[in-house]
């Protein structure tokens, strides 16, 4: 589906991503982990096709990303960005409706079908009661769920999520990840999700990509990547990994 080959991205001449090659299979959840500043957000933004690439290529279904028009791209890839400021004066429903942009005519006219999809997306993230509220009045976690609904309303085969759980409480973290998991399994959505919480990554990801200082340190199954030795080295803090008592996935415990 989505593939990066020898991808290098630089800001003001300073490389932020160095020589990254990774590909995503249809229907898989790939978690992106790594310390602050390791390039997780930049990689997500680059893969969404909006950053100038210094070196290497990004391709989508074997076609170069740069060959896609923005509207075509937006029918393939939806993004939930991280920690952004939302225009406060749109309602949650209006915000989600912007996800329908790639399907609108040049006047931006919305149909009843668009509205139905937007409401269904809000429902999926448990935010339908917020539909009429202004974004400026919502909490960070509520805004985050509305943003996910907007990405779902885009009806794309690929979803890029940049720390979608950072402002969420425990219950909403788990329901959001369960939803993402279900979408990947049932609807064959391909998901790339940057996560700070290594245990969420361990539990829900099919594969994990570990970034360190803009380089891809390792990629593979959670049990292979999330080892005490690897994490202690990359994060600069002693880490132990044990088996999760309920579901057997790796459980990361900082020492």
């Amino acid at each position, binding site marked *: 589906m989505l593939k990066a080959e020898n991808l290098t991205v630089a800001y003001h001449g300073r490389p932020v991503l160095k020589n990254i090659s990774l590909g995503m299979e249809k229907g898989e959840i790939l978690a992106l982990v790594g310390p602050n500043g390791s390039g997780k957000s930049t990689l997500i933004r680059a893969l969404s096709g*909006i950053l100038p690439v210094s070196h290497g290529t990004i391709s989508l279904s074997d076609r170069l990303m740069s060959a896609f028009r923005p509207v075509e791209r937006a029918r393939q890839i939806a993004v939930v*960005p991280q920690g*952004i400021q939302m225009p406060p004066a749109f309602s949650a429903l209006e915000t989600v409706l912007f996800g329908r942009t790639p399907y609108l005519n040049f*006047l931006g006219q919305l149909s009843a079908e668009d509205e139905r999809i937007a409401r269904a997306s809000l429902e999926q993230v448990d935010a339908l009661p917020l539909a009429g509220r202004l974004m400026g009045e919502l909490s960070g976690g509520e805004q985050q769920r509305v943003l996910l609904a907007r990405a779902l309303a885009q009806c794309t085969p690929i979803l890029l999520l940049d720390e979608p759980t950072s402002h969420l409480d425990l219950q909403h973290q788990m329901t959001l990840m369960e939803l993402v998991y279900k979408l990947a399994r049932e609807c064959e959505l391909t998901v790339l999700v940057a996560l700070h919480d290594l245990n969420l990554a361990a539990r829900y990801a099919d594969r994990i990509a570990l970034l360190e200082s803009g380089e891809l340190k390792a990629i593979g199954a959670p049990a292979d990547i999330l080892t005490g030795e690897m994490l202690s080295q990359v994060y600069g803090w002693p880490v132990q990994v044990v088996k999760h008592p309920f579901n057997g996935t790796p459980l990361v415990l900082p020492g």
Partner: protein
Amino acid sequence: MRPYLLTLLVLALALLLSIAIGSVFIPPAELWAALSGSGANGTFNTILWNIRLPRTALILLVGAALSGSGAAYQGLFRNPLADPYLIGVASGAGLGAVLAMSVQWPYTLAGLMAVPLAAFVAGLLTVLLVYSFARVGGSVPTTTLILAGVALSSFATALTSFLMLRSSGELRRALGWLLGGVSQGGWDAILALIPFLAIGLPALILSGHALNLLQFGDEQAAQLGLDTRRAKLVIIVAASLTTAAAVAFAGIIGFVGLIIPHVMRFWWGADYRRLIPLSILAGGAALLLADVLARVVIAPQELPLGIVTALAGSPFFLWILRRAKMGGNW
């Protein structure tokens, strides 16, 4: 539909006042007679058709242009204080217009078009300069926007004053014009104005959805499928086109493009698909009312229109600044 109906109602009232009131008051009955062509009173007929109607039409179009472009600049810069006057586009366009006026164009339609064209080129250059100076990363903060606007505006105004001092005769007339006195171009001015607005205003109205998306920032707008580069170019060119046309025929009238979009946003919400057309209609109405005021305050003399809008607009500007400082929603 309610916002449109109310705005149109105010606009109709403003049109009526603007036609009836002035140094000579035309009573309603005579007004109707003169409009329908059955007027017995020749004086009223002349005043109406040669003075009041062309002036009313001009003010309506200028107000619509300034307010519509003001709303678009606010959306484009994601800044509530953007206004053709404050960000220096109006002064830049003014300089272009005066430059064109200093050449003796024949008094024909083509001659009349030279002034708005020069104003457009200079206005567009100014907005691009302001944008490149004021930009910090992907956004345009209020402080840098206003400072860059003030600096470029002062520069353009100084050059304009210099041009006017150096020239004798012809450009003296331009002083009254620069203060927002409406030029006495009659129907010709309106004919020259219309092509600019016929391109600019529809382009702005059609950019409503793009402006909405740009409120999320360039990155998200692009991720949602907007060709941001093209959309911004269309908006900048269209807004500068309408601003320049307004400046070329009515001088520098500040604050209309600031106040009206604000009031519309406050009453009817932030959706640019609605905000732009409403600002256009309400801007026309507001400038007509300001012009009526300019005609009656020190009658039989007239105040330059720019003075009226600045006196009303500056306090409003300070009020918004205060609210923005306190982190208020806009």
